[in-house]
């Protein structure tokens, strides 16, 4: 869809749907076992429109007792012989594809809801978040029946093969900065590989996740496969992380909480842990780069999504001979950034997510000024209600300043100066984080040198924030454990089982299971006599054939 089409579609949608309609499509309860339920405690919490600071609605608040219920539902959905466990892998893929179709159908609505609850510009929600969500689900839909084990020529008279089996009940805890997208990143690989899910969504942004829950039910996932719990980290999140029946936990959020999750796993059942945490990602501009393009990309790298990106390019290293010009142009660009009502299609920047983040960012700005960085523009509040902050640029930033070391998660850009390649690689790597990095240069040698020298999970060359469902994403060092997206994303949700020639009966049944479970289009019909008929039309046909077989044998 071109941008023009997108805008047209959005306008069309807005003309038909007032803001008040939005909530009529939504449930505000917990989604457990494909049913809507109040919290056991009966508690609710308010979710807030960050553009106004007003309460949108009350949502049921899950805590430990609800996690318990959800884990029971998910375990039951995962029991041996359950519909989910017996489902053809290709059909799991088909369900994910149908979920993508349903989300695509309701994209305008979901984008509106996302903007209302999160504050991101509607144009971005509709043109970036939603298509990315749909693509992610379609991508993993395709993997479901392609996640292949191996047969292995081991020494001796043995036959050896591996099966890629689901891990089991997966706890997933997602953040508020890309509510829909993070949900898709988590659900896609977990469901493609056959796991069941207990997902806690961020208390700031529960609404779109709940709508997607209703779509999950609509497209036909068996009950208990996906359970969605709005709730707080210290209660519901902690209950998931330390639960003895949760086999795996995946968390996206702050490094601080990442430490807690890893500890909780260690002190409970050693559940598998994957973490996508914070970053302080270096963005390195060499003097031979296309200046105008590098300025625009670096602006985007930091300010995208109100600066609320774990991979934000928040240390912009610029080579000395082009430093002044770069700063000047960056300030010019930041001043032009349109801040305002996120439903206005011209808006580039909406509000920050909540009062806490708002205060924290303003605190960092003060520290920057205090520690001697040069405030080139912005630095203040951008509206008298809601959590808007002016696009802010600091020049003359030194590596030891707080704003150069800590994750700000707001619209605050730090520009640092460097002289040589060796120097910048050392400085860029001098951080506990290692999520992403970028280098802008026309020189292939320099690009290779810097990109192989950087300690980061993703390196962009002459671009920034380029994501594809196909390419893995994750952090070195304290930025995380494991990789999401791509084929690599499947590893997190898979146990590898090695089967060697074991007592004869067992291997035999495994072989038969293997053979019979591989979705056999011909076999389904041809081996009619083997499978007991079920109550669908095809089964009637099978029954019909079987009867005939029986007649022949009578």
């Amino acid at each position, binding site marked *: 869809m071109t941008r023009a089409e997108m805008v047209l579609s959005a306008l069309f*949608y807005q003309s038909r749907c007032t803001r008040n*309609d939005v909530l009529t*499509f939504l449930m505000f309860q917990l989604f457990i076992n494909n*049913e*809507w339920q109040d919290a056991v405690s009966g508690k609710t919490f308010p979710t807030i429109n960050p553009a106004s600071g007003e309460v949108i609605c009350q949502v049921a608040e899950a805590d430990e007792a609800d996690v318990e219920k959800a884990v029971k539902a998910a375990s039951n959905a995962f029991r041996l012989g359950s*519909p989910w466990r017996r*489902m053809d*892998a*290709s*059909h799991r*893929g*088909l369900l994910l*594809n*149908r979920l993508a*179709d349903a989300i695509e*159908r*309701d994209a*305008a*609505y979901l984008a509106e809801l996302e903007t209302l609850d999160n504050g991101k510009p509607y144009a971005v929600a509709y043109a970036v978040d939603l298509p990315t969500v749909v*693509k992610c689900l*379609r*991508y993993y839909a*395709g*993997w479901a*029946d*392609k996640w292949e084990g191996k047969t292995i020529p081991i020494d001796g008279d043995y036959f050896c093969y591996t099966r890629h089996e689901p891990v089991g009940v997966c706890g997933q805890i997602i953040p508020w900065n890309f509510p829909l997208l993070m949900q898709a990143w988590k659900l896609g690989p977990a469901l493609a590989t056959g796991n069941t899910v207990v997902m806690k969504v961020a208390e700031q942004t529960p609404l779109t996740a709940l709508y997607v829950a209703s779509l999950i*039910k*609509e*497209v*036909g996932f*068996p009950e208990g496969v996906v359970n969605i719990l709005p709730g707080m980290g210290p209660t519901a999140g902690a209950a998931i992380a330390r639960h003895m029946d949760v086999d795996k936990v995946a968390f996206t959020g702050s490094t601080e909480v990442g430490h807690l999750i890893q500890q909780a796993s260690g002190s409970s059942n050693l559940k598998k842990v994957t973490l996508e945490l914070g970053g302080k990602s270096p963005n390195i501009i060499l003097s031979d780069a296309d200046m105008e393009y590098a300025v625009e990309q670096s602006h985007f790298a930091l300010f995208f999504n109100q600066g609320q990106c774990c991979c934000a390019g928040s240390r912009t290293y610029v080579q000395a001979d082009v430093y002044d010009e770069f700063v000047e142009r960056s300030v010019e660009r930041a001043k032009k950034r349109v801040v305002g009502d996120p439903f206005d299609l011209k808006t580039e920047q909406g509000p920050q997510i909540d009062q806490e983040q708002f205060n924290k960012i303003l605190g960092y700005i003060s520290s920057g000024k205090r520690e001697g960085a040069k405030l080139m523009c912005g630095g203040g509040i951008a509206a008298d209600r809601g959590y808007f902050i002016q696009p802010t640029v600091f020049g003359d930033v030194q590596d030891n300043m707080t704003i150069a070391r800590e994750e700000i998660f707001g619209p605050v850009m730090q520009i640092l100066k460097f002289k040589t390649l060796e120097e910048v690689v050392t400085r860029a790597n001098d951080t506990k984080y290692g999520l992403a990095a970028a280098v802008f240069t026309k020189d292939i*040698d320099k690009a*290779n040198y810097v990109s*192989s*020298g950087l300690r980061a999970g993703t390196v962009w060359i002459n671009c920034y924030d380029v994501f*594809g*469902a*196909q390419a893995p994403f994750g952090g070195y060092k304290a930025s995380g454990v494991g990789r999401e997206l791509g084929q690599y994303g499947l590893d997190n949700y898979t146990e590898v089982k090695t089967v060697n020639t074991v007592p*004869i009966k067992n291997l*035999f049944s495994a*072989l038969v299971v293997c*053979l019979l479970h*591989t*979705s*056999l*289009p*011909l*076999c*389904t*019909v*041809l*081996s009619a006599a083997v499978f007991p008929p*079920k*109550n*669908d*039309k*095809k*089964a009637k046909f099978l029954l019909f054939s079987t009867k005939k077989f029986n007649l*022949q*044998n009578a």
Partner: protein
Amino acid sequence: MHQSGGTASASPTERKHYSLSSQPANGYEHQSGNGFNHQDHNSQNADGLETNALPTPIANPQIVYTKVFIGNEWHESCSGRKIPVYNPTTEKLLCEVEEADSDDVDKAVRSARAAFQMGSPWRSMDASDRGHLLNRLADLVERDRLLLATLEALNCGKVFLMAYFVDLMATIKTLRYYSGWADKIHGKTIPVDGEYFTYTRHEPIGVCGQIIPWNFPLMMFVWKIAPALCCGNTVVIKPAEQTPLSALHMAALIKEVAGFPPGVVNVLPGYGQTAGCAISHHMDIDKVAFTGSTAVGKLIQKAAGESNLKRVTLELGGKNPNIVFADCDLEYAVEQAHSGLFFNQGQCCLAGSRVFVEEPIYEEFVRRSVEKARSKVLGNPLLPGVDQGPQIDQKQFDKIMELIESGKREGATLECGGSPGGQQGLFIQPTVFSNVRDHMRIAKEEIFGPVQQIMCFRSINEVIQRANATQYGLAAGVFTNDINKALTVSSALQAGMVWVNCYNAMSIQCPFGGFKMSGNGRELGEYALQEYTEIKAVTIRISQKSS
């Protein structure tokens, strides 16, 4: 309980649901158990599968598409000639379609080449979008499932319900499967020695000629186009002259999907000696894939050698051993061996046409197999209750009858059948031969008809040796409850597929192809992607290596 109904029916955009419903593969959607769940699966109701009646063929479907499909447009053939297309059940003319020959092939290749030019819409399309197009094509096939199954039954003589449940399901699943691969065909980065950085790209080969047979017209069509398109190739495909109708309908759907650029798929009904030959000899076709007889496979390989060394993949004939040990579940083995041979009127390259049965159960096995064969109902494949239709044409009919005669003459025991089924038409009675010896023609040549050969064996080594004593190596079956026998025999057989305690257990995820003269290369599964990609290794000099 229908909370989510609000989201489904009152969806804010009020757009129509996609018609996504597919036959639930194993009926498991109903295993979740308590009945009322059904209402939630509203998308399943779209094509009426939840109602009680079996699907029924469309009465007298209008045949709309009869021309050559080049560059997303319908063309008359250059020569003006037409092919008569028959209904093998009645032997009456169904319609005439335009007959492509070498001039039309040239035209199609130009169109496919243009679509493959660097910078073309097809070459610059995201891989995931290629995948999405295949998925949308699957949606349309699902929508037209009844019509396509009817066309298959009319044009090919297939039992309608088989066409509906087997051919169409496989068609839809194949398209969806390769739709998923499009953006997962990974190259590698390779830690080469020296100050270099090396990576590989898996690139499409280019213009692919594809020549398909008449026994599974629709399924073969998608087995060929789906992996080719998923890898980014363009296609010139020739359906068999006997069965062009479903392929032409697919061409219309490809156009309807609105996203396949002109020239990406070109469909040319035509004869092997003219159009097929032109494809395999063409200097501007980069690859040819053929499914059909071993005799023609050799011609294709030769043509590639004589012209531009185009890549060749071949799926050819078989004389597949199906080995039944005395310790198996006899009733089940008889049933599987029966359907393993008689499925699709015996017109399968996979047909288990040499059934080796261990001596202790030989007589009983023959007795039960004959019983089963006798109970088969021949008739109009569009009618319910019929389980065997006509052979495809007079030529095949004559060939099968001639081989049956040779079996009698060479001393095999004709247990049942052996004659035409009924007074007229191309029907042949289900036929079973016992006491078949390995040197007989019916034990060596591919019959491609409803004729089952049952042989006797004594030892495992003997049967392995006899099963492998053939020029073919497509498929094989083994029935036993003994794990050691199963593993020994399945390792020793020279065949591209070995089924243990099942037969014809095919799936899109699983590769398919032949050893020896049964073919070159593999279709289906991830393996098929190799047949449609060229690997390019890019090595870049770097200033300093870093591990």
